């Protein structure tokens, strides 16, 4: 007993308790907005607007979800977003990872030049009009292709990947393989990729969620509603739920009928607003634990380093 107590205070158990308590408090704090959104999605929208929902639902109703299921646009958007996310992320990986690997190599002549070459684009952009005209000159306006090509390289993510490679893939390892007769391509595919599962997991997550949440590119470059991603429809719903307040402060000339109409649209948007958020977030929440396994499996280097 005394021994146990001593151990408790001296070391790992006390520490574990502290960690557990901190994490638990953190969990509660982070859970709150999620529970709130879920509760709102099954509450009477009027109660939500009046600020009466704190934790549990008020005026329970599943009407919102019923309407979301009937809302065709949402499901078109869903299919499009899945497509853009999957294909777009694949392209991201193909563009980003080899480049990051090459830049991480100490023996690459001109690596500083290339870093600056890439980083300049983080800071200087052409702005809306020149970028649009550029895409138009490629004939990519209003195509699904532009949604997966645009943003193929995020310099930020590339830098993250590069620092991972230079920290975790010892130069000696690839050099040895090269001396054994492996080409750089084979090196990258056969040695580097299997060793960087954690990185691939992070990249898939970063890029994938970037695509999932992407809104502005679709707004600028797409015309057809049938090609719109989910976020556009989500924004429309969110906008509509603030319609009356916004319109009335902008335009004092509204007639009684127009106000009635806006109120009606707003009521409908309020009803599905939170449901749409839940529905649109769900896939990401399901996928995350699966990706996370890769982060944990990244323990490869032990054997190499030791």
């Amino acid at each position: 007993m005394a021994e146990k107590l001593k151990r408790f205070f001296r070391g790992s158990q006390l520490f574990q308790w502290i960690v557990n308590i901190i994490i638990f408090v953190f969990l509660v704090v982070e859970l709150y907005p999620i529970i709130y959104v879920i509760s709102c999605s099954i509450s009477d929208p009027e109660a939500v607007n009046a600020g009466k929902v704190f934790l549990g639902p008020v005026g329970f109703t599943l009407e919102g979800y019923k309407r979301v299921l009937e809302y065709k646009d949402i499901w078109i958007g869903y299919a499009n977003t899945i497509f853009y996310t999957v294909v777009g992320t694949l392209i991201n990986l193909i563009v980003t990872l080899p480049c990051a690997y090459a830049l991480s190599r100490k023996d690459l002549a001109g690596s500083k030049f290339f870093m600056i070459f890439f980083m300049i684009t983080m800071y200087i952009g052409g702005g809306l009009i020149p970028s649009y005209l550029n895409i138009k000159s490629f004939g990519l306006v209003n195509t699904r292709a532009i949604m997966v090509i645009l943003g193929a390289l995020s310099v930020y993510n590339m830098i993250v990947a590069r620092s991972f490679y230079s920290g975790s893939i010892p130069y000696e390892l690839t050099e040895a393989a090269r001396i054994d007769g492996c080409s750089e391509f084979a090196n990258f595919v056969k040695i580097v990729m299997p060793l960087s599962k954690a990185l691939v997991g992070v990249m898939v997550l970063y890029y994938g969620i970037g695509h999932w949440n992407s809104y502005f590119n679709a707004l600028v470059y797409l015309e057809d509603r049938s090609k719109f991603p989910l976020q556009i429809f989500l924004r429309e719903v969110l906008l509509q739920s603030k319609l009356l307040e916004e319109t009335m402060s902008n335009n004092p000339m509204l007639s009684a009928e127009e106000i009635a109409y806006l109120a009606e649209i707003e009521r409908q948007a309020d009803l599905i607003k939170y449901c749409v958020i839940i529905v649109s977030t769900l896939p990401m929440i399901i996928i995350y634990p699966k990706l996370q396994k890769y982060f944990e499996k990244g323990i490869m280097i032990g054997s190499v380093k030791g």
Partner: protein
Amino acid sequence: MKRKARQQYKQRYNFRKKVLSKWQLYVLMLPAVLYTLLFSYKPMYGILIAFQDFRVRRGIWGSDWVGLANFERLFDSYWFPIILKNTLTLSTLGLVIGFPLPIILALLLNELKNEKYRTFVQTVSYMPHFISTVVMCSIITMFLSPANGVINQIITFFGGEKLYFMQEASWFKWINEISGIWQGIGWSSIIYYAALSSVDSALLEAADIDGASRLQKIWYINLPEIIPTVVVMFILRCGSILSVGYEKVYLLQNDMNLIGSEIISTYVYKVGLEQSDFSFSTAVGLFNTVVNCVILISANWLSKKVTKSGLF
């Protein structure tokens, strides 16, 4: 003389050999380079708009040049010092508080033994990232509401006076930062958590045998492992010091807290409502870039001095 020329030749030869022998590496970079040239560099001429009175139909080459007039409009504004100060305050707070917390979270999560529990905590912690800004802001406002907000109910429960958080300019930066952490901490910690995965388990075992405490292990083994990532993230963060997004701040703004909440991006938005002016907004963007770059280069230089590693 001859010797020098020969040396020069040799150097050049070496360089060429170095490049040629590694041609495969350049091929690996090819897609990224091509993409950057076509999609980033090709429209980059648009930055010239900042020095023009830009007219869409006349295009860049036909619009009148106005020198630095667009920049002067920004600098001459009475609000300029206020918005610059507010922008810097918000991003500095983000750097000082918002930056280290995800690292600490990643280290703590790494200490959780139960795998399922850990995955659950992580999934929960990154979910707020998906709540759109509009909804997040309404949650914040509701939370801080003096009438029935949770925080004020706690305060009055303990006999305190109600606080009008959203009506105080001085509170704004804290509301923005804390809610930002709330929403982003789980998401930001992912990169550090992933970096922790490459900690050598043999090292940890050896430390165990030496009788190292948990804290010691974190400090001497785990932390050093993620330091390179931390440095990179820190430098990048420094390089966006003036780029504070407009949407959230704009939504949380009200007339009462304006003195503390007007930042560069919201100000530009408001000027744009009066008259849409690409030249002005581009000029402001360029000003941001210049400041950001200066900070980035300094941070990179400092990092090279201190940690011997940098971005370039």
